């Protein structure tokens, strides 16, 4: 068995650690590229959401390298992600690829079917070993998100532009070469120290932007044209409302173990939305309110074209923007999104935010003409 999985930001690092601990033979799909997207767009249904298309591209490129088993997460609605596995299975079948899908979820068959799938994946390893591997992987995901967060802060303030980018690039290059959870953690810590050592310019007043929206487009840099880096290099500190570690801890582990969840957005969202409607719409609304309360300068909402929950959120955001006085930019991404147009919109938004902040700071100093 050669397992593969879809790309989603740092997922490849986490799954790599997981599979190495469990001694599962794996193939990491080639990084998402134009070809990945083209393959996906060609074979997936036209109006399917972007992540499904990119997944298909990932799978085909992995199968070309010898993968025969696809491992992914699932769900039971109402967001379409829960049915991805079924649709992708049919698409690959029609293309003549003979691969097995191991969707790790609680399907009709209940826990028994889940264990069967898990057993197929982990072979003769015990469930305890599997649990330990998951624990290690979770630890890595948390460390990775801390590293990302640190890079957002440093990038906006670095004295010499491009240092953080270079450091992170080096990290992503190296992390694919080291083996095992321990050395991955070690590398993360080292990179963290290196980042902290970067000289920063304390005189700049940075703008702060919160990013909300659908989780895949938020986390996979290929789909969002590396928006964090783009904004960071414009001197903006970014905060991403959804992180992988949070998703793993809150939605997978705590859900499975029926533990109490820590979801601050649920308390912030109610005046505008007081229920789960699938996907991450509730998070989008709640986190937007939180960002406004925390004094952020602006919010960017990202989601793939036709994403159902985010469309609902999008129709509420203008009201939040008005009532809480915070500019919100919605960016919708599909296979036809061009980088230049996308960047122009972001730059215009940032210019507006900078001007707005300046006006606010000096509002008392303006003198009306003739006085």
């Amino acid at each position, binding site marked *: 068995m050669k397992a593969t999985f879809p790309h989603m930001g740092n997922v490849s690092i986490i799954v790599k650690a997981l599979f190495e601990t469990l001694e599962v033979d794996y193939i990491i799909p080639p990084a998402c590229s134009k070809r990945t997207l083209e393959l996906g767009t060609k074979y997936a249904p036209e*109006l*399917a*959401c972007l992540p499904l298309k990119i997944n298909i591209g990932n799978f085909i490129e992995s199968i070309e390298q010898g993968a025969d088993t696809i491992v992914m997460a699932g769900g039971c609605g109402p967001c379409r992600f*829960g049915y991805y596995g079924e649709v992708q299975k049919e698409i690959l079948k029609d293309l003549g690829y003979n691969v097995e899908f191991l969707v790790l979820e609680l399907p009709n068959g209940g826990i028994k079917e889940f264990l069967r799938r898990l057993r197929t994946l982990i072979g003769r390893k015990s469930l305890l070993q599997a649990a330990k591997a998951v624990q290690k992987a979770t630890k890595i995901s948390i460390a990775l998100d801390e590293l990302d967060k640190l890079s957002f802060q440093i990038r906006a303030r670095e004295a010499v532009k491009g240092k953080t980018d270079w450091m992170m690039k080096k990290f992503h290059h190296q992390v694919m070469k080291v083996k095992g959870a321990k050395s991955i953690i070690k590398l993360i810590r080292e990179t963290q120290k290196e980042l902290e050592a970067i000289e920063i310019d304390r005189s700049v007043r940075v703008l702060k932007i919160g990013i909300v929206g659908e989780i895949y487009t938020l986390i996979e840099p290929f789909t969002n044209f590396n928006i964090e880096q783009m904004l960071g290099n414009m001197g903006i500190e970014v905060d991403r409302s959804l992180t992988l570690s949070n998703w793993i801890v809150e939605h997978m582990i705590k859900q499975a173990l029926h533990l109490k969840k820590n979801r601050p957005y649920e308390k912030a969202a109610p005046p505008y939305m007081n229920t789960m409607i699938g996907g991450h719409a509730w998070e989008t609304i709640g986190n937007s309110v939180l960002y406004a309360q925390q004094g952020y300068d602006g919010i960017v909402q990202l989601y793939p074209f036709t994403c159902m929950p985010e469309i609902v959120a999008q129709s*509420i955001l203008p009201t939040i923007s008005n009532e809480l006085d915070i500019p919100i930019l919605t960016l919708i991404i599909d296979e036809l999104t061009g980088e230049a147009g996308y960047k122009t919109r972001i730059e215009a938004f940032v210019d507006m935010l900078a001007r707005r902040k300046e006006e606010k700071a000096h509002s008392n100093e303006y003198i009306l003409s003739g006085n």
Partner: protein
Amino acid sequence: MEVRVGIPRALVYYEYYPMWKAFFEELGVRVVLSDKTTKPILNDGINCSVDEACLPVKLFHGHVVNLKDKVDYLFIPRLKSVAKGEYICPKFCGLPEMIKYSIKGLPPIIDTEVNLRKTRSQLAHAFKEVGQVFTNNRKEISKAYEKALHEHDTFIQEVRKGKYPTEIIEGQKMLRKHNGDLCIALIGHVYNIYDRHMSMDIIAKLHQEGIKVITPEFLSDDVIQHKTDLLPKKMFWTFGERLMGAVLHLLDRKDIDGIIYLMSFGCGIDALVSDLCERKVRRETNIPFSLLTLDEHSGEAGFNTRLEAFIDMIRWRKRNESNISAHG
């Protein structure tokens, strides 16, 4: 003066209107419907909703605009789930919010949540909540609730026997003059296929051609259930499940000459379900399959051409395909 409750003539109106009407009227509340869909109603909807919304949801906005100044309350229940373990669609869950934050000057909205995902008993609770807006008399509410359920059952039974929902609700006259040569299955959400403006009156057009039409609503729940139970993973969208089950069932039948899947642009569920259906049909049978997508730019001429070409193709194939090898 009696209280007026407005029900937009869109979305699940085609499925639940008899039930809601019976409930409100039993409580002495007057039910006001929006006008039948027209181009201006659709345009109003497009203007006040987010661009990304699907066509039926945009149309719903239009019907709300049409209705809002004529009524004391708007009835837009939050339909999260209408069957165990299933959902409808995220946009249905968030519909009250979408309306509230997109249209100004609305009367109060009754946005009671219906969520039968875990237990059916929540339905009685939801009706009670709606009833309490108008009266505190519990007996009256539960009487109205019983009446509503009864009306719904009668309505569904009639539909399963082969009557179109619009024939029952609106008394629409349907000329069925089939000459019996063709039978086409028309697959799609109720609000796409029964709204005469949106579907460009596709049912009447097929009838005009002398074609017998079968819609998913004509099939009994058991038939659908039997087929969807065979799916490797339960389809958690109630409407999607019905469409998928219907197509799987039709593949077994010998009397279907063609399948038309009518979907609306931007419908997330149709995007996946139509693809799954098409793959099944193409892989397992040679029944002609056509996917027609409706959007706000749909021109009737182009639509007619595709429909006519599809019918001609089926007729031509039926008449001329001899099953004799061309190689002699």
